[in-house]
């Protein structure tokens, strides 16, 4: 076994080591924590890119923790989808961390950097694991870290939203455990690949229980993804969170979507009897309602960060419309749109922060305020982020939505899907135009501008996010080919099961 064979564990090991290290180092000097966090994120990105290159050959790698053979030990599975999510998480983490360091948001509380690293550990673990209980554990790791990050900086508004966020997620975790208990009792395994084979052997008398277990599991993922009617926790939480953290949280809802994409074809595929494709009848209507609610929220939002939070809900809805058919081409389009919508939401949160920092007491509220430094530059950034989020050309949102529209024509209800996607786009454009014109065009003349920040360095992180969106648009051919290949891999669980459950090769 060479050193390269251990690559799959590295994205979990790096933050797991960096977090306590940062905690210890920050007792001496805060700057060391920042340095450790940046180095750790860069190392994660390098490692994720290496895994992406490895997965891009079409190979599925199973890494047996402690070298225990598959159904008994825990495995990490690297395929195209997992590698793609790892790269996305690492890129997003770098952008969010950069913004937090530049705006000194990381100095508002004590443990920003350790919590940030633990959050990344949970994210990377959730993307890599091939074991359902391990998925629960990594969900908990990322949630516990997110509780801390969400409350970072404190204040009554954050505490109020924090109580609800924690309570909702605790209930979600409990339901997750019930679903796991049912599935274990029925199949006798927790390994996803093994479970996918064993669900076919569940006795006819237990089919009802299997269906309940599947629906409970899917509802938990829907709660994490903030799918209507389980979306109510998201907006209040994300709108009051420190924007740099909210930018990272943009990927947290996508973890729910990822878990859905990963678990449903693998465990509840064609062979699952009564639980075959168990969310299918509910997912498309729920996704359409989610998209509608999200972009309606964009239309009526009272502040830029609230608008960004609603945009997260709306884009999850659009994404799930494409997922709902479980067909390779639509799923490929969804995966491309997933990467795009995560970066676009992060860009929106960061622009909201830049505006709030320059307007003093007016914050990021969607009302005319005083003139502020760099208004045209920030306005341009906002416009680009809005274009990306709503899906107008030339940024990648347009390509993503175009691919989704094209691919859902294969579904029976595609007329509804088209209507919702196009309608929400229009509402979103009007909503962003309304807020943008209030903040960047109108001004209250007799107000003096708030003291401008000394530098324009805080524009760096949103610019990087937008440049990446441009790159995603320019490299759309390669990216969509990769996404389609990843979707095909996900929808062929027999192949990954063969890799995971092989006899010990070495």
């Amino acid at each position, binding site marked *: 076994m060479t050193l390269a064979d251990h690559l799959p564990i590295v994205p979990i090991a790096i933050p797991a080591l960096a977090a306590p290290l940062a905690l210890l180092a920050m007792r001496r000097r805060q700057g060391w924590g920042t340095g450790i966090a940046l180095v750790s994120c860069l190392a994660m990105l390098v490692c994720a890119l290496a895994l992406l290159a490895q997965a891009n050959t079409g190979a599925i790698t199973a890494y047996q923790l402690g070298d225990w053979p598959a159904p008994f030990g825990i495995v990490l599975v690297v395929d195209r989808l997992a590698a793609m999510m790892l790269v996305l998480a690492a890129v997003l983490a770098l952008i969010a961390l950069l913004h937090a360091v530049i705006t000194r948001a990381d100095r508002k509380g004590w443990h920003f950097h350790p919590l940030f690293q633990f959050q990344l550990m949970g994210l990377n673990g959730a993307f890599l694991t091939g074991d359902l209980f391990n998925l629960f554990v990594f969900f908990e790791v990322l949630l516990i870290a997110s509780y801390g990050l969400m409350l970072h900086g404190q204040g009554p508004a954050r*505490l109020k939203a924090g109580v609800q966020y924690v309570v909702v997620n605790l209930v979600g975790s409990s339901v997750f455990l019930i679903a796991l*208990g049912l599935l274990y009792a029925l199949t006798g395994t927790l390994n996803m690949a093994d479970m996918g084979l064993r669900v076919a052997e569940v006795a006819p008398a237990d089919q009802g229980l299997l269906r309940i277990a599947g629906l409970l599991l899917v509802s938990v993922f829907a709660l994490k993804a903030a799918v209507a009617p389980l979306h109510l926790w998201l907006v209040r939480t994300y709108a009051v969170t420190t924007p740099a953290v909210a930018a990272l949280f943009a990927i947290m809802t996508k973890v729910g979507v990822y878990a859905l994409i990963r678990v449903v074809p693998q465990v509840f595929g064609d062979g699952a009897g009564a639980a075959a494709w168990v969310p299918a009848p509910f997912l498309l209507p729920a996704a359409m309602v989610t998209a509608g609610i999200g972009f309606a929220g964009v239309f009526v939002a009272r502040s830029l960060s609230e608008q960004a939070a609603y945009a997260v809900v709306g884009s999850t809805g659009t994404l799930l419309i494409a997922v709902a058919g479980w067909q390779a081409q639509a799923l490929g389009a969804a995966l491309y749109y997933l990467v795009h919508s995560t970066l676009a939401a992060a860009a929106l949160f960061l622009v909201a922060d830049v505006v709030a920092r320059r307007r003093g007491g007016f914050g990021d509220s969607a009302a005319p305020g005083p003139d502020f430094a760099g208004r045209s530059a920030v306005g341009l950034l906002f416009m680009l982020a809005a274009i990306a989020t709503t899906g107008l050309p030339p940024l990648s949102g347009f390509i993503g939505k175009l691919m989704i529209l094209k691919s859902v024509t294969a579904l029976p209800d595609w007329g509804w899907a088209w209507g919702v996607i196009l309608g929400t786009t229009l509402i979103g454009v009007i909503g962003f135009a309304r807020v943008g014109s209030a903040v960047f065009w109108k001004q209250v003349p007799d107000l003096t501008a708030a003291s401008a920040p000394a530098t324009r360095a805080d524009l760096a992180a949103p610019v990087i996010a937008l440049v990446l969106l441009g790159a995603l648009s320019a490299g759309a051919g390669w990216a969509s080919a990769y996404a389609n290949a990843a979707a095909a891999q996900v929808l062929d669980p027999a192949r990954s099961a063969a890799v995971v459950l092989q006899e010990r090769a070495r």
Partner: protein
Amino acid sequence: MTYEFLVASAIGVLVAGGIFLALRARTFQVVLGLTLFSYAVNLFLFASGRLVLNRPPIWNAAVTQYTDPLPQALVLTAIVITFGMTALVVILSLRSFLETGSDHVDGDHVPSDAQDGIVDRGGQGGQA
């Protein structure tokens, strides 16, 4: 009456009580509800390995019949996580009460219902 019935009804009562309390508007009741709910979940997970009596979970030369050890390990993990989370939510509710002066889950100043048995202090809890 079988053991199955006893365990199943205990889980059912705990879940019902937990959900009822978790839907209440005051944080303390919600915390109690979550605790009951998590007890029920732990019992349920434990039972997912089937209920058997007087059988060891680990290897023993004298016996041939074992109980499933995996749910016990899972329950241990779940208990640890729930314990930590309960501690967090207690502190968080307390902090929220001290900062906003209200123990309502929305942080709003809502007059107490008579059935809550709480004397309304007019939202001055933070200064108490």
